[in-house]
């Protein structure tokens, strides 16, 4: 039987673990230091732990870091890392360097059960949740991990469909005993799973991003089945109950589909939906996926859409497309690996 991993445990969980092993309580903090602040590969390297403690831990546990199985590097510096999970499935993380920052896009689930029309990951179906350790491992196990300035939960899966593990991973990333990142450097993206979003907003200070993609009920229903359960109007109404006037941000992701959601009618309705909300709209070019009925809007249309929203007082940006030569659409790389595995 494979020993369970230490990596991914919170300080509370480590404390329970060391007390169960009759080790001093402070050992938990020492282990957290080794796991989340230092660069070790084995429990034996935790040299400020007693030999007895190291032996006890090694008998029952392993560190649990998993190196990427593959990496695809783009000409623009973007890299896509492929990881094998504990359940022998595949997830992706994208490293996106920029002039003054380096962003890592992490996955929260293997596959996804939300079934959005434009998403490659959804075509894999749902295969499982990632543990907190498997989420943080996507950062900790890449060579660039110490230079990462920002993390976005925008990879495979719906983070709020795996809320407990996502919250635990955020605790590890942002706690002083963990990786001590500022929550202002982390954004969690959701398609609008309202109850879990409320829990997140009340338990985390990280930024929120909501996949919007069209303000119209019937259109969004065709793009995103979640609209049948949690309509975007209700999600936005809920967001209005929270304060985003300070450092915490809420943004709305908007993939631009040619002839579908890029018209003046959409500008008008978006303006109504988001009126008086401190937010940003982030326009995204569509990375085509196989057999999709959707096509991306032209650059001219995207620019015009941005300008129209801006003129209505909505702060609007266009996300730079990165890694187009390495199957940038989330889920493509892991789907390819999944198909290879099934051969």
């Amino acid at each position: 039987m494979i020993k369970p991993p230490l990596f991914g445990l919170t300080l509370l969980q480590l404390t329970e673990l060391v007390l169960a092993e009759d080790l001093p309580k402070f050992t938990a903090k020492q282990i957290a230091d080794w796991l989340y602040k230092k660069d070790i590969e084995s429990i034996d390297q935790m040299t400020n732990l007693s030999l007895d403690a190291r032996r006890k831990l090694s008998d029952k546990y392993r560190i649990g870091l998993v190196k990427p199985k593959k990496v695809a590097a783009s000409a623009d510096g973007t890299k896509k890392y492929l990881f094998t999970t504990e359940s022998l499935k595949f997830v992706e993380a994208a490293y996106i360097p920029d002039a003054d920052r380096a962003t890592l896009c992490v996955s929260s689930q293997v596959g996804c059960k939300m079934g959005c029309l434009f998403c490659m990951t959804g075509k894999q179906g749902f295969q499982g949740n990632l543990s907190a350790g498997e989420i943080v491992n996507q950062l900790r196990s890449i060579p660039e991990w110490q230079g990462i300035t920002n993390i976005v939960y925008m990879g495979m899966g719906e983070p709020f469909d795996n809320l407990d593990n996502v919250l635990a991973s955020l605790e590890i990333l942002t706690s002083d005993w963990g990786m001590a990142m500022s929550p202002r450097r982390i954004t969690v993206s959701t398609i609008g799973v309202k109850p879990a979003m409320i829990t997140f907003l009340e338990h985390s200070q990280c930024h929120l991003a909501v996949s919007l993609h069209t303000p119209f009920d019937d259109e969004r229903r065709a793009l995103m089945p979640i609209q049948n359960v949690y309509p975007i109007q209700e999600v936005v109404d809920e967001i209005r109950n929270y304060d985003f006037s300070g450092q915490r941000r809420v943004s709305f992701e908007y993939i631009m589909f040619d002839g579908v959601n890029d018209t003046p009618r959409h500008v008008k309705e978006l303006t109504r939906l988001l009126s008086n909300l401190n937010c940003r709209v982030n326009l995204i070019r569509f990375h085509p996926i196989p057999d999709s009925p959707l096509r991306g809007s032209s650059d001219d249309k995207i620019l015009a859409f941005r300008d129209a929203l801006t003129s209505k007082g909505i702060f609007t940006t266009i996300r730079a497309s990165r890694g187009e030569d390495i199957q940038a659409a989330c889920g493509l790389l892991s789907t390819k690996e999944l198909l290879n595995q099934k051969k």
Partner: protein
Amino acid sequence: MKSWNDLQYAKQRILSHRQIANGAYILSFKRNFGFKAGQVIGLGINKEIAPRLYSIASAEKADMVDILYAEKSGGELSPALPLFREGDEILVSEPFGTFTQYSDDAVYVAAGTGIAPFMSRILSEKGNTPTLIHGVSYPEYFYYSDFLTEKLGRNYIQCCSRCPNDDYFQGRVTSFLKQWKNLDTTKKYYLCGSAEMVVDTRDVLISHGVPFANINAEIYF
């Protein structure tokens, strides 16, 4: 994924709890709220355990609310639900959700217990002459089949992926749709099932020329 934190809910006494197939049940309680066919409710044991969402399978005006569900091994609620008996109390949320559209001549495509929202529509007489394509693994999971055979006649199409005889279309709903000569690209298609079923079915429909705007899906979340 769900929590009770934004749901209105009340205790309901279970009036009927029947096993209708291996691992499949219908749980019923008195209807003391209004709802629209296609809506879901959250069921739970207590506030500490997150509710699970289930589509209502009964008619809008029926005295009882019926919940069709399949036993599942994972989670906190699913393994416990079959243990509940008539007279026990259970937490029930207000109905919500907007999978409530209907149109005449619609095509419903369901997998397993995904038939529930369509049963509610058919029993509530929402939309004329629907076609229902129901996919299951074994014949015992053709829930409500006697009623549906009588009600829908030829518009009730049964697909069975592991059936040993020719009484049904042998294969999944996607296999049926791929070879269906009556597939009408102008109709509205409503899907309910797992994410994989919905995504695969939607892909087949789109590949046959159905506009994606004519496809509306509810996924088991």
